[in-house]
């Protein structure tokens, strides 16, 4: 297996004339098997340890200061609240909240923003919720090209709103 011959064939069998004593060429054969074995071992090692899919990242910009409050008209404020179990509720201003399915959210956000270009989206996620929910929501918001949105902590009032929406 995979041996390399060097020095050509040992042709010098001619036991001819005494005058021209041909030097016998030695044919060297190196057994490459161990080297190839090691090479394959390394190859498998590198193939298994390497990874190509680098994680993606989502860029997030926070407003620099919490104190810089911006006055927003109630009708321009869309609040999305995420309950601990992953249900999403929305409302505009101080209207009662409504449940919305995750699947419809993208279209919903696009429509709402088309209706009212000044709309600001506020995302409130329950502290008991999962991080996955936050990423999912932000992803939808990014895909729907909503640039004016912000994150806010969920307070007792928000929880009561969710309770009410659930009861309805």
């Amino acid at each position: 297996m995979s041996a390399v011959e060097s020095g050509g064939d040992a042709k010098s069998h001619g036991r001819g004339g005494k005058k021209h004593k041909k030097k016998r060429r030695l044919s060297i054969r190196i057994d490459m098997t161990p080297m190839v074995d090691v090479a394959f071992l390394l190859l498998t090692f590198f193939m298994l340890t390497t990874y190509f899919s680098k994680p993606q990242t989502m860029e997030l910009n926070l407003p620099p200061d919490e104190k810089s409050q911006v006055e927003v008209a109630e009708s321009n404020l869309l609040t999305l609240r995420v309950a601990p179990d992953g249900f999403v509720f929305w409302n505009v201003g101080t209207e009662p909240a409504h449940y919305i399915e995750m699947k419809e959210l993208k279209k919903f956000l696009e429509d709402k923003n088309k209706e009212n270009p000044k709309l600001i989206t506020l995302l409130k996620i329950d502290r008991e919720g999962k991080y996955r929910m936050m990423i999912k929501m932000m992803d939808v918001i990014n895909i729907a090209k909503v640039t004016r949105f912000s994150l806010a902590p969920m307070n007792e009032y928000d929880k009561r709103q969710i309770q009410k929406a659930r009861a309805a």
Partner: protein
Amino acid sequence: MPKIKKKRVGFRIDMTPMVDVAMLLLTFFMMTTQFRPEEATAIDLPASNAPFKMPETDIMVVTVNKEGRVFLGVDSQVLRAQLFGEANKLRPSMEVDRKSLHDLLIQARISNPKLRTLVKGDKEAPYGPLEDILDILRQVKITRFNLVTELEKA
């Protein structure tokens, strides 16, 4: 009758091309390989469609694992020695509490202003600690940071 001896056909396969290809692959993998960075805890990344690639150098990673424990890691050993002490410079990241995270983030940014902040949360992590981290980041005036996710499989 003379016994007909079956002549054994000794055959040889020339393995040279195969070995050549193997060597080529080996070199390729050796050149391109990037080892998975060490992690203090196993993190199962959430999926998203975010388009940015993760930066590799000058990074500072705030990790939140499944139980909501918070770890801070930086990529350079020098900075690690500065932040966590000489003894811990080989550890990829250290568990931190909310209070020390605040101070360490400031310290790290002073040592290397080019540091970029990554927040890496397990997808099952509770949102509470994440919210605290976002709050701390706001306090230390890191207003631009990245959330590490995995590309969603369509």
